[in-house]
C-alpha cells in the first residue's frame, strides 16, 4: 500500500479535523455503534444466549478477549473481531485479483495479499479456445502462453483444499488476464463484498474491478469474447506506439485511479458510487489529475464524505 502523505496548511488541518470529528459523530449516531477493541480487550457478550467465538477472539479466564485490533461484530451467536489492517481472508466465491508468482506443474501460484499464495489449477481454467475438454500434456506445456510470471489475473475463490491451500477458479470469459491498465493495492477491508465487482464505466471507456483482496484494477475497457489472439512478438513491438491506450481513456483511468488512492488514504470504504463521485467532483471543480492527490482536494474529499454520510443517515431515519 502506497500511503499518501499530504501536507496541509493550518486552515486545511482545522477543516480536516472538523470533518473527521463529524464523521466520528455520525458513525456513533448510526444504528449500532461499533465497539473498537485492541488486543487483550475483553469483549462484552451475553453469556446466557450462548455464543460462538469467531475469528480474532479467544477464551481466557472465562472471558472472551480479542486477539487483534479491530471492531467487534456479531452475527447471531457468532462474535468476531473484524480487523482493519490485517491481510485478506478469503471466502468462497470472492472475486479477487492477483499476480502470478510462479508456474508449477499444472498450476499457477498467485499472490493475492493472503498469508500464502493461492493456487489456480490448469483444470479450473477456461482454455483460450473456450472448448471444454480434458487438459492434455500439450496444454500443460503451453501454460506460459496463458499466464506468465507477474501477470495480473482476475479469478474467483473456489475454496480451501484439505491441505489448507487456497484454490481459485477462472471458469468464465470475464476472468483471466488483465492488461492495459494499472493495479492498485488498498487495505482489503476497504472493499466490501457486493453483488457486482466488475464495473464497466461506459461513459469513460474504463473497466474497474474491485477485488475483494484489496487489489483494484483500473484499465481500458475490454470487449468480452473479442479475445484477439496474441500476435507474434515482433509485430507487436512495431505496433507498440500506435497500440497505446488512447490519451482520453488514459486520463479517465488516471482520474479513477487517483480517486481510489485518495479514498484509500482516507480509509473510506470503496464502492463504485463513491469512486465515481470523487472523480466527477474533481472534474467539476477543475482539479488536475495530479492535483487530486494534493492537500486541498484531500480535505474536500473528507468534507464531501461527511455530507454523503449525513444525507444517508437522514434517509435511513425517515
Amino acid at each position, binding site marked *: 500500500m502506497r500511503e499518501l502523505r499530504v501536507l496541509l496548511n493550518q486552515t486545511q488541518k482545522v477543516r480536516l479535523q472538523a470533518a473527521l470529528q463529524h464523521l466520528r459523530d455520525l458513525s456513533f449516531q448510526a444504528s449500532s455503534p461499533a465497539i473498537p477493541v485492541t488486543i487483550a480487550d475483553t469483549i462484552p457478550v451475553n453469556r446466557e444466549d450462548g455464543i460462538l467465538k469467531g475469528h480474532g477472539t479467544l477464551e481466557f479466564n472465562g472471558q472472551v478477549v480479542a*486477539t*487483534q*485490533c479491530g471492531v467487534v461484530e456479531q452475527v447471531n451467536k457468532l462474535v468476531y473481531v473484524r480487523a*482493519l489492517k*490485517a*491481510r485478506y481472508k478469503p471466502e468462497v466465491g470472492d472475486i479477487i485479483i492477483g499476480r502470478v508468482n510462479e508456474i508449477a506443474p499444472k498450476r499457477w501460484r498467485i499472490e493475492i495479499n493472503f*498469508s*500464502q499464495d493461492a493456487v489456480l489449477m490448469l483444470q479450473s481454467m477456461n482454455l483460450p479456445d473456450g472448448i471444454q475438454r480434458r487438459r492434455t500434456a500439450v496444454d500443460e506445456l503451453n501454460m506460459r502462453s496463458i499466464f506468465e510470471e507477474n501477470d495480473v489475473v482476475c479469478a474467483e475463490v473456489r475454496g480451501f483444499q484439505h491441505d489448507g491451500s487456497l484454490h481459485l477458479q477462472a471458469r468464465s470469459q470475464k476472468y483471466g488476464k488483465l492488461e492495459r491498465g494499472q493495479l492498485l493495492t488498498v487495505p482489503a477491508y476497504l472493499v466490501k463484498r457486493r453483488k457486482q465487482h466488475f464495473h464497466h464505466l461506459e461513459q469513460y471507456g474504463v473497466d474497474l474491478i474491485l477485488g475483494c483482496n484489496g487489489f483494484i484494477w483500473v484499465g481500458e475497457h475490454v470487449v468480452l469474447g473479442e479475445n484477439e489472439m496474441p500476435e507474434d512478438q515482433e509485430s507487436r513491438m512495431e505496433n507498440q506506439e500506435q497500440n497505446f491506450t488512447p490519451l482520453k481513456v488514459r486520463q479517465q483511468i488516471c482520474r479513477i485511479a487517483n480517486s481510489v488512492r485518495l479514498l484509500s488514504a482516507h480509509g473510506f470504504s470503496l464502492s463504485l458510487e463513491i469512486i465515481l463521485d470523487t472523480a466527477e467532483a474533481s472534474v467539476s471543480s477543475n482539479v488536475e489529475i495530479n492535483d487530486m492527490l494534493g492537500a486541498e482536494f484531500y480535505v474536500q474529499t473528507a468534507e464531501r464524505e461527511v455530507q454523503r454520510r449525513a444525507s444517508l443517515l437522514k434517509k435511513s431515519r425517515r
Partner: protein
Amino acid sequence: MATAPTSTYSPSNSWERARQQQKKSLFRKEDWVRSDGRNFHQCRPAFLRTGATNAASGSAYAEFGSTKVIVSVFGPRESKKAMMYSDTGRLNCHVSYTTFSAPIRGQGTDNKEYSSMLHKALESAIILETFPKTTVDIFALVLESGGGDLPVIISCASLALADAGIMMYDLVSAVSLSCFGTNLVIDPTTEEEACRDGSFMISYMPSRNEITQFTLTGEWSTAKINEALELCLDACSKLAEIMRSCLKDNVLS
C-alpha cells in the same frame, strides 16, 4: 570506524574519564538528581505512532526521550522453500542500528543479541498457530540510541505486530531498570546505563500477567529483585495502556 584511531580523536579524554568516575560515585548518593529532571521511578515520556513505513504490513515508530526506533513487520508470508515444514508460524527478528544512532559516529551494525532477545520476548505473545507454514519478519531499526533501547524495541515491535493484524494473546510492553548502589532507577538513559551496577529488564503481558522475557545482570538481593520487579511491572502496565490508546485511536479514525 573507517579512519584509523590515530587520525580521529576526541578532545580531553582523560578529563572525561575523571568525570565518569565522579559521576559514578554521584549516582550512588541518595539525593542525586537525574540529568533530565525525572525522579528515580519516573519513565521518560513515550511517543508512539503506528504506520511509520508504507511498504510493510504493519509498522510503528517509538520515541522514548532520545531513543528513537522504527519497526516494520512484513508478512505473514509463505516460508522459504528451504525451511522445514511447520504447522506453526515462524518469527524472524532483526535489530539493526544506524551509523548515526550513537553520539560518536559508529558503524551501522546488526545487533544479534537484541535480535534473539526480541524474538524470545515476542514469541510467547503471538498466536503462532494462526499462520501455519508462514513467516513473519520483524525488522527493528534504532535511529537514535538514548538508553533502554531493547525495551523500546520490544514495545515498538509489539505495536507494529498489532498494526499488522497479527493475532496475539496480549500486547508486550517492556521496561528496563538500572541499579546504583541502593538506588533503583527506572528507564535509564545511555549516560546512566554506562555507570550502572546492575541492570534489570522485563517484558510483560499485563492482561495475562505473564512475563515473556526477563534479564538481570549484576549482584542483587532478593528484596531488591522484588522491589525492581514490582516497579517494572507497574511501569509495563502503564506503558501498555499508552500503547492501547495509540491503537484505539487508529481504529477510530
